[in-house]
């Protein structure tokens, strides 16, 4: 039974599209005119007050304003009464009555009738379809640094079964190596203690070799001392971190005594702060060189953490030996925000000297076995300054770990030119291309511990949400939710749909027998558009068949191609 609820819109619509004319144009449709169908209460009242109530199997089209106006609300009101696949909206206000206000009324009515018939044709083809993907409930967090720990800890707190795989014997990552953290100078050990792993299945000393999509879930091959174990997970959080680049002979590192990396200085300062005995004594005339092997053509990126680390260590050095001189040679001090800028100013107040150098390659470190001086490039007036130094600290960037590349390959994640994993910037930066896969921490880009923690927590919430939405019936999945699927019986397995997605999102072997996984941000319907068999379906969006039916709804009598 075809029922059209025509929203008169307080006369706004009925003045240009008279009800009687519309009724005449749609003889096979039961047309009910009403007002305020977009309001739940009045819509209910309209339906209840009908002398002849609508049968539950009725196909209902509400002819009203556009989705972007109140049409979506009217549709939502009707969905309270009718099943999702039995109601649709025909926009006859923004798409007909208003733009053709100047046209002949007969044409306008014909256009509105055509739009309503198209909606009915769509409904003819629409049916409730759902697939129950076989899915695993648990989440796997790869990498036990601050991001991974925060993610695992949050997931456990939310009651999601979670497994944390860490390559090293104990989790902690950078938190085990660093003494104090900028900008608040808290102890790394305290931060680590604030991320409890109660309820987390911890696989320490375990390497995740590869993660593949199989039958609606991720199959992770986890290697530990005993061998390789395959495990299934519903969601994966990639938190494999980054690793420091070494100065690699630049500025006399390796050949001159006293040329160290920022990480080595950090370790030395931590030891002295703890009161431990150290073989090296604190430098008294330190020169920090920023952007060593960074922001050049080989590594055209800023590592984000080096400037704050340098300022932090300069402040720590000044606190431990107030007479020490510290000079920071920099191209730009990248200290954005409130806390970092305050730290930067504090360092200047404490007497740390910041010198701008356009090109670090013009800086020369001089010495004979041991560092003695640092020669700066000539200033505009030709003067050359030489800094007396007993220690040169090279700030090097972070680069992606081999694990990131391996996972990107096996999971089909995108990476940028440097190998950092890419999310969907800027609004969904932690969601990757892989189904149910989230990124956090320095695997995406070097992050401070605090940023990494936040990213870990956020990724955990997204994973928890994903696992929940995945179990929802198809028609309750939100517009941006997961899942497109393949009607098995129609699928030839040709893989055009897979190709239309980013490669790796799903795998051919599973095509014939299981749902095709959509990516959270893809969901474009390209799979359905390139599928010649009509097997790919995107729930929530009009299917190609529905659209086809709609297009065929008003064949012109002469059937002429233009």
């Amino acid at each position, binding site marked *: 039974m075809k029922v059209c609820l025509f929203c008169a819109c307080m006369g706004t619509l009925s003045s240009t599209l008279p009800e009687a004319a519309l009724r005449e144009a749609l003889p096979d449709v039961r047309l009910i005119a009403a007002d305020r169908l977009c309001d739940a209460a009045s819509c209910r009242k309209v339906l209840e007050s009908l002398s002849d109530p609508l049968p539950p199997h009725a196909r209902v089209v509400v002819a009203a304003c556009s*989705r972007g106006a109140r049409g979506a609300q009217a549709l939502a009101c009707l969905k309270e009464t009718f099943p999702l696949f039995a109601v649709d909206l025909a926009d006859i206000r923004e798409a007909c009555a208003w*733009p053709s206000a100047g046209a002949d009324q007969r044409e306008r009515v014909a256009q509105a009738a055509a739009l309503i018939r198209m909606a009915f044709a769509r409904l003819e083809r629409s049916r409730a379809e759902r697939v129950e993907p076989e899915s695993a409930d648990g989440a796997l967090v790869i990498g036990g640094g601050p991001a991974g720990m925060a993610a695992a800890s949050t997931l456990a707190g939310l009651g999601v079964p979670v497994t944390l795989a860490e390559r090293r014997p104990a989790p902690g990552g950078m938190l085990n190596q660093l003494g104090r953290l900028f900008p608040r100078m808290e102890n790394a050990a305290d931060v680590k203690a604030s991320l409890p792993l109660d309820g987390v299945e911890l696989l320490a000393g375990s390497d995740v070799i590869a993660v593949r999509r199989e039958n609606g879930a991720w199959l992770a091959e986890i290697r530990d001392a005993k061998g390789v174990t395959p495990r299934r997970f519903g969601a994966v959080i990639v938190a494999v971190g980054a690793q420091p680049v070494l100065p690699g002979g630049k500025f006399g590192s390796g050949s001159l005594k006293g040329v160290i990396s920022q990480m080595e200085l950090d370790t030395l300062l931590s030891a002295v702060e703890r009161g431990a005995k150290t073989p090296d004594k604190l430098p008294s005339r330190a020169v920090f060189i920023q952007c060593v092997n960074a922001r050049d053509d080989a590594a055209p990126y800023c590592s984000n953490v080096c400037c704050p680390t340098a300022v932090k260590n300069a402040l720590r050095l000044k606190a431990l030996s107030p007479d020490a001189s510290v000079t920071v040679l920099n191209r730009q001090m990248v200290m954005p925000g409130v806390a970092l800028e305050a730290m930067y100013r504090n360092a200047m107040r404490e007497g740390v000297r910041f010198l701008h150098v356009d090109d670090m390659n013009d800086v020369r470190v001089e010495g004979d076995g041991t560092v003695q001086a640092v020669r700066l490039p000539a200033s505009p007036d030709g003067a050359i300054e030489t800094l007396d130094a007993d220690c040169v600290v090279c700030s090097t960037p972070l680069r992606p770990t081999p694990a990131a590349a391996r996972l990107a390959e096996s999971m089909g994640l995108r990476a940028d030119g440097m190998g950092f994993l890419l999310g969907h910037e800027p609004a969904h930066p932690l969601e990757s291309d892989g189904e149910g896969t989230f990124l956090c921490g320095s695997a995406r880009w070097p992050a401070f511990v605090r940023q990494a923690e936040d990213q870990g927590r956020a990724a955990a919430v997204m994973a928890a949400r994903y696992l929940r939405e995945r179990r929802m019936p198809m028609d309750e999945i939100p517009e941006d939710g997961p899942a497109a699927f393949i009607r098995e019986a129609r699928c030839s397995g040709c893989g055009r749909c897979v190709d239309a997605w980013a490669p790796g999102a799903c795998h051919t072997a599973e*095509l014939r027998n299981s749902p095709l996984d959509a990516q959270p941000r893809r969901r*474009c319907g390209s799979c359905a*558009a390139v599928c010649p068999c009509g097997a790919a379906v995107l729930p929530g969006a009009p299917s190609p*068949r529905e659209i086809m039916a709609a297009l065929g709804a008003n064949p012109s009598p002469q*059937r002429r191609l*233009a």
Partner: protein
Amino acid sequence: MTQASSQGYICAFACRWCSLLGAERAGRDRLELPAGIRLIPVSCAGSVSADHVIQALTNGAAGVAVLGCHLGGCRHNDANRDAHARLDALGALLETVGIDRRRLLVSWGTAHEAEQYAKLMRDFAALLGSLPPGLEPAPAADGTPEKNPPAGPDSAPEEDAALRDQAAEAVRDGGAVLGLRRTDMGVVPALFRAEEELTDLTAGPKWPMAKLAGLLLRDRALGEVQGVEFRALREEAAALGDVPLRVACRACDARALRELVALRQFPEETLSILPVPCSDARKEACDCPRPQWPGEELPPEPETSGDDLAAKAEFWREQFSRCVQCHWCREACPVCVCPSCSLDNPSLTPLGPQGSPLGYHLSRAMHVADACALCGACQDACPRHLPLLKLHQAAARALRTWRYASGEKRLSPLRAERCIAAASGPAVPQWKHNLGGK
């Protein structure tokens, strides 16, 4: 019903994230729009398939507009670029059958741009109004098929002998050969296991061997025989177990079989070919563009001008009027692999007197465009000898302009992302006709 405009309506597919909102806002701002725009919300311009456009054009739409987000602004990993490539290929195909490709408009705009949308639609309507009426759809033909198509020149004895020598070698190594057997009834496909059987093996006239070999190799990959076509022979082949199988076929069949590998029907290593060379007489008789084994180039694109459109339209109208809608072209096509064909959907291809073959043929050409080996099996199978290869050549040529050719190792068929130079980045967008102005 009354047509809203004498030219027919405009069917506008609009991405619900941007263009649809722009279009709705144009309505809300009461901007002047041409009458009779049927706005169809889609989840993304990437979801608009060639079938949709063909269906609209064969159902009285004067023009079809596909409106998506700005290039570089698509929220679905640049799916709008995919649509661009796909629809460009379709545009070329439309032109081949005499439909002005400017009737298909592809444009990028956002929710902000209501006025730009209104102007674009007004211009489009004006353009459609200025175009001469296109192709009258051909009435469906009735009556019986003409006699079976001639099989073309038969093979010479020395060709058969050369083939038998090679086959003998394969059989001696314990393998089996799929080839043609000469019988009193003409040639039939058969499996050859023993050397003595090979006396009947022939290069034969042209026969759609790829279709059969594809089914057979797919059975092997799946480990079971699915479907009814050539059932007896396929069961015989299944009984062979792991015995290596070689397919005696022509270059065109081999191309098609490689396409089937790309379509993941069977693994590449199970494909082993016994080449059957084409004689000069054969090459002469075939429209095959690449009869040579490593053969390459497509024939050059014929020069077209606006006037040609009418002639082409007339040519194809005449051709399609002879189509009996038997769909043998589809059945013979080696790369048609779907278990159930969406062209059997009666709303797309109504059969009988009210059906127009145009939509069916265009849709079919687009479905296989990225996999077509240009083997000509469709046109050989046609009882009315429609020159169907011309359609496929046009589609293949169009894909070539997107730097895609069948047979190449593909990332994704009909997908533009890797075709458009990756460096293109975000474009400075404007609502404009992106296909027609070529």
